[in-house]
């Protein structure tokens, strides 16, 4: 077995060195301010954050508080996402595409439960062009009825089909809606065509865009851009975005956990999600680092090739073709710790039973100290690796700025994980079992167990 100290030492050293001599770190290949720390600021009411990573490329994102949680009608977030980078008052869709192609850039728009993210990756020199483009998308997109019919609806329809074909997606969304009902529970894609045929039209999308792109509701986040330069361009190009939004959107109320059970018959495979209340983002109020450690302790996925990994659930998996994965989904004011099990019906059943047994074991304290240490190291590594991965931090940082005007600082999160004690992990596991669980089974319902059979409260 790999001794823990060797796994950890690199990361610890990296952290220590960074804290001790931030200025000395600049070598040949090092950036001017080479830390995971985002510097945040505000220009004419638009919040922005940046970190100056070394390298010739920049990733720029507009993170708006307009995920499915905040949509007043079903499908609006998806509609708005598909309208991003389409014709604006100044440029046509085609021109935007061709210009970005000429600059060698990549444009992307996607949404999560809480955020809508418009993202551009490009060469460092082109920062002004893309800040201007994001400004244009935010303030002067044309929501044309024909573009909606010809370009937007088919894409939403495709997302719907894709969603229907995936038992895992259905199970995860079903668990979220059991856990949070409305708000965070709103599914990220439509399970039926009704929402986007009945409620969606260009006018409502335009009205929603006035909310999504109002200055207090979005943030600009950049990786690999100088703070001063970003500030200059943000200051210049976001004049036309609405200064505030006066209407009402849902999702503002703090999330409440409900829990329950849902079973959906499906032909395309078997998936089971067992979810418990988790931790909010570190920028939120209910931040519990022990949940991240518990998540990596339960784990399920191996990080080492040709080995099931050390995590408890990877040992519990009934067969090598049964996939188990524990995710700690963090949102601005709540979270969900969930285990996803996929595979053949009988194996999913066996694994689900074993998974609950394992959680009970952790709660009872029948877990060695070494395993908790390993879980801590893995959780911390994941977090720090997250920091190096450019995309991961973008959404969290933007969301942190929009929700609580605080950027998501990966270094701090890693430190918080270090401070988790063994007792706290046990306590967290115990609290999972005391609370109501959200259990969702999708697939062959004859084989998949009920929450009652697993010994969970729902």
């Amino acid at each position, binding site marked *: 077995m790999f001794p823990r100290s060797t796994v950890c030492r690199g990361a610890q050293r990296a952290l220590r060195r960074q804290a001790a001599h931030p200025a000395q770190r600049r070598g040949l290949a090092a950036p001017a301010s080479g830390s995971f720390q985002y510097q945040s600021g505000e220009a004419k009411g638009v919040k922005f954050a940046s970190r100056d990573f070394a390298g010739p490329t920049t990733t720029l994102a507009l993170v708006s508080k307009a995920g499915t949680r905040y949509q007043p009608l079903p499908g609006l977030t998806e509609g708005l996402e598909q309208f991003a980078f389409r014709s604006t008052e100044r440029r*046509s869709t*085609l021109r935007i595409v061709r210009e970005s192609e000429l600059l060698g850039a990549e444009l992307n728009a996607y949404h999560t439960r809480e955020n809508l993210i418009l993202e551009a990756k490009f060469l460092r020199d082109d920062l002004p062009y893309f800040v201007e483009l994001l400004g244009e998308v935010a303030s002067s997109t044309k929501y044309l009825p024909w573009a909606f019919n010809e370009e937007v609806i088919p894409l939403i329809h495709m997302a719907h089909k894709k969603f229907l074909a995936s038992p895992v997606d259905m199970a995860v969304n079903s668990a979220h809606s059991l856990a949070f009902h409305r708000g965070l529970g709103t599914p990220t894609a439509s399970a039926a065509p009704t929402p986007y045929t009945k409620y969606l039209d260009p006018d409502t999308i335009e009205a929603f865009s006035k909310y999504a792109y109002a200055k207090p509701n979005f943030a600009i986040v950049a990786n690999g851009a100088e703070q001063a330069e970003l500030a200059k361009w943000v200051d210049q190009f976001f004049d036309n975005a609405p200064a505030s939004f006066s209407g009402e959107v849902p999702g503002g109320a703090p999330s409440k956990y409900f829990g329950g059970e849902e079973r959906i018959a499906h032909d395309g495979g078997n998936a089971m999600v067992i979810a418990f209340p988790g931790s909010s983002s570190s920028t939120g109020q209910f931040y519990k680092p022990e949940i991240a450690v518990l998540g990596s302790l339960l784990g399920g996925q191996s990080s080492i090739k040709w080995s099931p990994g050390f995590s408890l659930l990877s040992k519990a998996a009934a067969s090598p073709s049964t996939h188990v994965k524990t995710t700690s989904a963090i949102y601005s004011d709540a979270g969900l710790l969930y285990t996803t099990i996929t595979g053949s019906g009988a194996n999913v059943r066996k694994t689900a039973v074993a998974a609950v047994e394992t959680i009970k074991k952790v709660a009872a304290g029948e877990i060695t100290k070494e395993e908790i240490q390993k879980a801590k190291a893995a959780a911390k590594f994941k977090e720090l690796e997250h920091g190096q991965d450019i995309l991961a931090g973008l959404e969290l940082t933007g969301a942190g700025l929009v929700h609580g005007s605080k950027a998501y600082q990966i270094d701090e999160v890693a430190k918080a994980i270090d401070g988790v004690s063994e007792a706290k992990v046990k306590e967290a596991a115990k609290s999972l079992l005391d609370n109501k669980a959200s259990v969702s089974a999708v697939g062959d319902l004859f084989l998949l167990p009920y929450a009652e059979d697993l010994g969970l409260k729902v």
Partner: protein
Amino acid sequence: MSVPSLAPFIAKRKWLQAWVKPLATWYTNAAGYRQLGLRADDLIPEENDVVQLALKRLPPKDAYDRVFRLRRAFQCSVSHQLLPKEEWTKPEEDAPYLTVVINEIQAEMKEREDLEAIIVSKREKNTKEGH
């Protein structure tokens, strides 16, 4: 589809417009489509991709009205009759609704062709640095 037109040339010159206007009004009335309740845009030949696409892009209400006018005109034509005078298209109703969309589509197509024919040159700064 658009055809070469003298109209913009004439509209720019007030004196010429004053001359031509009565002639144009007489000609449009003599063309006879207004007596069948049609609009000028209803007469645009639709057997090509551009106009087909434009028809698809019409708002539902406009598309419905267009079909109604066409069917009414066919009916009149078959029965060799004109509409009663109060149902004739009034000059102020005879506004373009399809041409606008056609122009947009043609502008789009032209833009696409222009972009296809684009000649890309390196930025000066990058040429110097030898990117």
